[in-house]
């Protein structure tokens, strides 16, 4: 049985809820009071993850941390289609490359959100600038992708865990004062992610409207 140590307003926790919803995987939630209770720094939590970060996922006796690593684990273990974390070496590298971008989005877009909303002592302007730089690169990548018939961050004709990993803190960027107005291809991609069968929301992220039918 899978147990997720979870905070509702965390985009990193939401990545796992989202993939498990898409894969139709049942799981239990143990709520962790990240804010204001700072339970992720409590002794009992540090025994699960000495780095003191959410999320943590337990699968029977196996304890895992880091959202990107857990996405890969869940896909490799439970996605019978093999599409979400493909075995092909070149595509694995592409996916992991975007997992790293997702961490950069966390350290910029999510940092700005934590500073403005949750009183964290991060440099707001620097975080916002960093997020804009990443969003510009993503927008270009996705725009050229659309021209070439590629809808997702990686080259396969279907979404991968790369899309799941990058999605939440792109969607929550406005809470960090980072507008997505100048990134139309990025916005179209967020709509496509929100139309993946099994998609689920978190607080602060609303479902997409229906796609245009030609």
């Amino acid at each position: 049985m899978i147990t997720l140590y979870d905070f509702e307003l965390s985009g990193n926790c939401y990545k796992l809820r989202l993939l498990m919803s898409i894969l139709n995987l049942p799981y239990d939630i143990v709520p962790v009071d990240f804010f204001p209770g700072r339970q992720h720094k409590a002794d009992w939590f540090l025994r699960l993850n000495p780095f003191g970060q959410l999320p943590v996922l337990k699968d029977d006796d196996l304890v895992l941390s880091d959202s990107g690593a857990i996405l890969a684990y869940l896909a490799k273990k439970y996605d019978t289609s093999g599409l979400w974390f493909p075995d092909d070496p070149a595509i694995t590298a592409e996916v992991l490359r975007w997992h790293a971008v997702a961490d950069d989005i966390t350290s910029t877009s999510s940092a700005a959100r934590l500073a403005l909303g949750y009183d964290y002592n991060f440099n707001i302007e620097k975080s916002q600038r960093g997020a804009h730089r990443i969003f510009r690169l993503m927008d270009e990548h996705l725009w050229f992708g659309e021209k070439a018939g590629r809808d997702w961050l990686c080259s396969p004709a279907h979404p991968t865990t790369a899309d799941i990993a990058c999605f939440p803190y792109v969607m929550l960027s406005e809470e960090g004062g980072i507008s997505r107005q100048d990134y139309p291809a990025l916005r179209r991609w967020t709509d496509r992610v929100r139309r993946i069968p099994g998609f689920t929301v978190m607080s602060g992220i609303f479902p997409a409207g229906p796609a245009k039918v030609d």
Partner: protein
Amino acid sequence: MPQAPDPITRNLWHVVAATDELPIGLVETTLLLDTRLALTRGSDGEPVVWLRTDEENGDEIDADSVLERLPVRTAYGYTWTCLGTPDAELFPIPEFAEPDRVNMSCGSIGIHVSAPRAVENFLDMGHFPYVHTDILGSEPHTEVKEYDVEVSEERDEVLATKCRFIQPMAAKSAVGAMEVEYVYRVPHPFCSVLYKSCPEDETRRDVIGIFLQPMTEERCRAHLLQSMIDSTSTITDLRRFQQTIFGQDKPILENQYPKKLPLDPRSETPIRADKSAIAYRRWLSQKGITYGVIPQAS
């Protein structure tokens, strides 16, 4: 330069922190009415608030060394201060003292909108099915039924009663959909308290407070209070429920334009469901509040 707050706003008690979350012996910084504040707690646990100069967040400090202090009071788990001459009393929430209630802060969350916009959103039931889908409302039960609103002269507060709504999951303790009755109070220009039917005990009401700290005219911090009748949920569960709701409101609030609340009745078009909002706007106008609002042209 920000404009100076109106005298009514300046003399109010304003919430600045959840008292238990203020570190003892360390500085926390915040903003109130465009004014930089520093806060800490002494070894006796009592909060101390003063005008910030060169203090930084996390600096070590001995509260006893702070001589020039702002007035402070603690109420409902929160620390309140005033930049002017405060009233003797803060509005009452008598339920808070009932011994079997679970009282808790649910986090102090910054929002990029004026404090009055956040109060008004708190009063609105019309958005429940669309923003809090499958929790506080669901289609097709979207109607806001007729309710009563009055301004109590004696208590100087806006009061909305007989508000009813069908809610799929009214509280953490709910086990199914129920028609919930709400009473809303606005006992302070930037604070509201709601009473809603309690799933666990039909004779009593859960109490949820939202206390807004106006940081600037277009930014505030929402300090959330829950005072619940719930014998089974943990504090973590109860906080999570409230934060889920608030997290859904946040992007909606931050997309409101203008960020200040317009008080001119012709500036936005109300519907019947907005009766309490209309009374709130009129009450602010009559009080002479100009901070965080667009006053009616005289």
